[in-house]
């Protein structure tokens, strides 16, 4: 069990920190309004110059290897819902790191997600 818990901590904290960095990088680039392939390539070329993108990608790659590791041990229908625990971490991080206002309604949604994850964990045979 300790092995799975280690993997989940690795995935949740590494992955969430990585996604926060990516979000910060995309906010720097600005809203994408043109979805034609050439325009998307231009966006990608701008994105790869942002340092937060590289920090985020590194963290997410490490989290991905952790994800593969825990998938070798447990069912996908158990592993993926448990990783939703990252919502508590991400809601905190969004307010502190990105300056986003997390409303009461969003907090309520996040809380429900966390209760659901707890049940998924508790229901494991």
């Amino acid at each position: 069990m300790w092995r799975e818990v280690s993997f989940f901590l690795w995935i949740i904290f590494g992955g969430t920190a990585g996604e926060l960095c990516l979000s910060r990088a995309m906010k720097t680039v600005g809203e994408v309004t043109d979805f034609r392939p050439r325009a998307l390539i231009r966006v990608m070329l701008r994105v790869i110059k942002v340092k937060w993108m590289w920090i985020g990608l590194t963290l997410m790659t490490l989290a991905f290897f952790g994800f593969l590791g825990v998938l070798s041990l447990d069912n996908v229908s158990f592993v993926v819902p448990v990783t939703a625990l990252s919502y508590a971490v991400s809601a905190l991080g969004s307010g502190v790191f990105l300056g986003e206002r997390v409303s009461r309604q969003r907090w309520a949604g996040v809380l429900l997600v966390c209760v659901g994850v707890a049940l998924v964990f508790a229901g494991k045979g």
Partner: protein
Amino acid sequence: MTSSAGLRFKTYLLILIMVIFGPVGDVLLREGMRRTGKLTTWAPAGVFHFFVRTFTIGTIWLGIGSLVVFFVAYMLVLSWADFSYVQPASTLSYGVVALMGYFLLGESVSLTQWTGVGIICLGVFVVGHTHPRTTEPE
């Protein structure tokens, strides 16, 4: 200026792509990892050989391809919508993953777990009724 309805349509379309390709990628990865075997060591050499073996399996690459599609949609939507909005909204994929694991891979999912997945989806519904952006564009 982007209209509120247009912004919502664009956001929901990309979230739909995320909800389909994310779970398909996860299921393919699980199938690939079943073929790889269990990671039971922390020794660097053992971990290295484990992942080398992992990446020789075609199903893993199909899973990664599907997750790349998910990832591109995710990055695009993050360029205008708040992270704390997009991430919970994409949790609908947790329900899809549980269904796919149950029906496609034959995994056992208990009643308590189904209840948990249902509550996660309810959480997604609650989050989905907030505006996708709370900060002004820079």
